[in-house]
């Protein structure tokens, strides 16, 4: 057993194996990083062309400029599309947060098959292809006599964002400790006060996350909006119509701004949610408690 031949062989095998493992690991890392490159190349491209001093969106690079950002303010159509789109989305967020949360609470507390069936029905518009939802709503609005414009778009967006809010809030509701609700009832709070003092505070971050998601979904939506819009366009609809006829770099500029704002919003939202989840992030809680008293 102690002869040199025997002791050398395993050593050789081990070094071969570890070399193979290193190579395999290198390949894995390379693949992993390649996917991120693939995911971010388009985003970086848009960002770069927002600062490129040329109306042609192609290489070579012709120098740095901020003129496209300045041009946003001068483009009246673009600006009015932006403000119209924002008002649509803010209305949608406000209504969807309340309605979606209400639906989640109702589904969570009701028993029997009815809430499950209704929930499944309400979710349908969030999963069918956009043009199918858009066309079916356009048909309905035409038959009922709802004119194309702000409200038709808002209703159309609510159809697919309310189920998103409902599902996000419902997921959180189902994870809540039922003994907290019982403790509250036990200590003298009725159903409504229990919701307000115990359940809702635990749902806040889920509702916030759902509201943010709703904001981006609504603000970005093109196809459904296309079916329901009147003469006033939302921002993505305006961008869409522009891309058909050659695209001006100021659109790169505005989507860069919107992208940056979105990312800042997610970072803030993630930090808020993390703080809620991580029990040892102290400061936020203390601040809230003072308000609570």
């Amino acid at each position, binding site marked *: 057993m102690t002869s040199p031949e025997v002791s050398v062989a395993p050593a050789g095998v081990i070094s071969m194996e570890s070399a193979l493992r290193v190579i395999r690991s290198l390949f*894995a890392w390379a*693949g*992993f990083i390649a*996917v991120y490159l*693939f*995911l971010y*190349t*388009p*985003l970086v*491209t*848009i960002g770069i*062309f927002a600062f490129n001093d040329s109306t*042609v*969106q*192609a*290489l*070579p690079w012709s120098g740095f400029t901020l003129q496209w950002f300045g041009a946003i303010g001068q483009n009246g159509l673009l600006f009015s599309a932006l403000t119209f789109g924002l008002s649509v989305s803010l209305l949608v967020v406000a209504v969807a947060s309340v*309605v979606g949360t*209400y*639906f989640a609470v*109702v589904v969570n507390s009701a028993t029997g098959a*009815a*809430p499950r069936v*209704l*929930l499944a*029905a*309400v979710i349908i*518009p969030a*999963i*069918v*292809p*956009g*043009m*199918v*939802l*858009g*066309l*079916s*709503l*356009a*048909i*309905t609005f035409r038959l009922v006599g709802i004119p194309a414009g702000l409200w038709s778009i808002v*209703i159309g967006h609510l*159809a697919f964002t309310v189920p998103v809010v409902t599902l996000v809030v419902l997921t959180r509701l189902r994870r809540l400790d039922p003994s907290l609700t019982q403790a509250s009832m036990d200590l003298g709070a009725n159903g409504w006060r229990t919701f307000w003092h115990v359940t809702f505070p635990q749902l806040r971050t889920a509702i916030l996350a759902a509201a943010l998601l709703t904001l981006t979904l609504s*603000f*970005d939506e*093109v*196809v459904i909006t*296309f*079916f329901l819009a009147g003469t006033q366009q939302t921002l*993505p609809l305006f*961008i*869409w119509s522009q*891309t058909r006829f050659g*695209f001006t770099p100021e659109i790169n500029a505005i*989507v860069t701004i919107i*992208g940056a704002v*979105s990312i800042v919003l*997610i970072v803030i939202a*993630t930090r808020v949610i993390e703080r809620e989840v991580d029990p040892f992030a102290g400061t936020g809680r203390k601040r809230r408690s003072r308000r609570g008293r």
Partner: protein
Amino acid sequence: MASVAVTHEGRASFRRRLPLVPLAAWAALLVLAPNVLMLVYSLWRTREGVLYRVFTFDNYIAAVTNDVTLAILGRTVAIAVGAALLATAVAYPMAWFVVRRLSKHRLLAVLLVVVPLWISYLVRVYAWKIILGDNGIINSTLIELGLRDEPLSFMLYSKFAVFLTLTYVSIPFAFVASYAALERVPASLLEASADAGASPARAFRTVVWPLSRQGAAIGFALALLLCIGDYLTPAMVGGLEGTMFGSLIVNQFGLTNNWPLGAAMSIVLLLLTGALLALVARFTRTEGTLD
């Protein structure tokens, strides 16, 4: 005593059901009514822009017997299934990598995959137009470097462009679903299977995959849903060659102004999607759950 209890129950159950009324109204007005009306519309007809309220199956016949429409339908399924498969094939191993190899930066890695979802879909698709075009980044680089004299023409306005872009937009969805499933596979199960003598590859095949393939299937289904009903991607980078079924429906609303035909096509698309999802569900049933 008993009868009192019964009426108590009855009244209580009515009061418990009352909060469901708004939910039911929502389902009726925003889900049931539009779909029923679309179905009705699909059975009507238009001629020269005038709507005739007569029942006919002509729209369905037109939607599924026309050679062009059928070819587009087949292409739509092929591209959507292919892109969803490729996206899942990329995202699932990647999710496994994140779960196994990363600990401190795991959340960051997940977040970085999801961030593109928060950037306008339209913009992400448009970016590919810039990248793939004749004057796009790839072609100008190739020409600049002297590798080619003229641009590669297959890259934009083609099935390839649609396939690539749809794969791109699908990856985050497939990743999130796979990750959610893989993250729940306890490390102790892997240790147990290694302890029992299984090689890492074998442990993966016998433990990890059976417990997480439903997540992969959900990711695939999400991606498929996204791809099969997409309009922006084929319209932006597909050209004539890359037209998909969704574009036909949009055209019936816009250019052609034949809503009944559009409605019939919508219903065909819905049925097709439903059938595909049912297939996915059928092939990925799992025994046992983690919870």
